[in-house]
């Protein structure tokens, strides 16, 4: 009676528009649903910023929205990095908005019209690349600005001499796992939420199939829970984008100012 509903199927990457065997230098470069949603996020961000860049003296609603986000990011960088943080505003703003839009585009109820929404931030390949991007900016800026003095980052100020051989490897390891924890956090938070929603959706379908009584009790309760979890997921989508931007700016602070 009850079918098994696979909550992981929503993360399957499929080639679209018959580009299954498109290859470049031996690698498959098929245009997938993941790529489609990345393009969608970039296009929506582009339209959002272009529409708000009219530089009117009295901003309209759209311009006020864009200015709200840019002010938010610039104050974030000012608080965490200081004056030297201004040159990172474009990067952190793009990063924050791209992740935010990706999280939200993946949550659109497109399933109602038969499309399959896809959240590419629920894949470690996508979030890992964003994390590596942030981490390489930290490395490049750190070594460019401070040279080999950058290694003093791994010895906190005032460490007693006998403690240095112990502290240095610990700090080095905690520095090296940063890109993993940065990418992993976003990927797992999005995956966990979507799996939870699909599991609850499975409860609704299976209980309705089992009979009217089950459908009205278990199904309705699960559906109400789903609505609440969806609201929570929107909060998580914003928080995770914010945390990614925040941690990036904290790491940039290390590169820019050392300790």
């Amino acid at each position: 009676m009850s079918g098994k509903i696979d909550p992981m199927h929503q993360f399957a990457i499929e080639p679209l528009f018959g580009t299954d065997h498109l290859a470049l230098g031996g690698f498959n470069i098929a245009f997938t649903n993941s790529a489609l949603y990345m393009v969608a996020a970039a296009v929506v961000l582009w339209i959002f910023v272009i529409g708000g860049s009219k530089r009117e003296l009295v901003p309209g609603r759209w311009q006020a929205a864009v200015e709200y986000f840019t002010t938010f990011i610039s104050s974030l960088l000012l608080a965490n990095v200081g004056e030297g943080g201004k040159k990172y505003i474009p990067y952190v703003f793009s990063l924050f908005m791209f992740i935010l839009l990706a999280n939200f585009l993946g949550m659109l109820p497109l399933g109602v019209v038969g499309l399959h929404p896809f959240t590419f931030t629920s894949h470690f390949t996508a979030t890992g690349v964003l994390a590596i991007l942030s981490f390489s900016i930290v490395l490049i800026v750190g070594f460019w600005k401070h040279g080999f003095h950058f290694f003093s980052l791994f010895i906190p100020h005032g460490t007693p001499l006998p403690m240095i051989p112990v502290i240095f490897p610990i700090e080095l390891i905690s520095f090296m796992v940063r890109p993993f924890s940065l990418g992993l956090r976003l990927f797992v938070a999005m995956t966990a939420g979507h799996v939870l929603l699909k599991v609850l959706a499975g409860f609704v379908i299976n209980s309705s199939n089992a009979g009217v009584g089950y459908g009205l009790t278990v199904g309705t309760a699960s559906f109400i829970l789903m609505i609440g979890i969806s609201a929570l997921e929107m909060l998580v989508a914003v928080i995770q984008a914010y945390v990614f931007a925040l941690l990036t700016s904290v790491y940039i602070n290390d590169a820019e100012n050392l300790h």
Partner: protein
Amino acid sequence: MDAEAAKVLGAGLAAIGAGIAALGVGNVFAAFLEGALRNPGAADGQQGRLFIGFAAAELLGLLAFVIAMILVFVA
């Protein structure tokens, strides 16, 4: 014990980690709220630190989830 059963049991045990991370995240916000109500003027300036603490506590719960997923789907 059957290997398949051990995997599922391990995934269930990993869920305890996710629950304990909930305690950690609750602690972060509780302590922030406690401090913020004592000194509301300083609260807004500390939101960055609040979310760094939240992210650090949450990560360990997410790692527990990853371990459960690896046990169920990969191992």
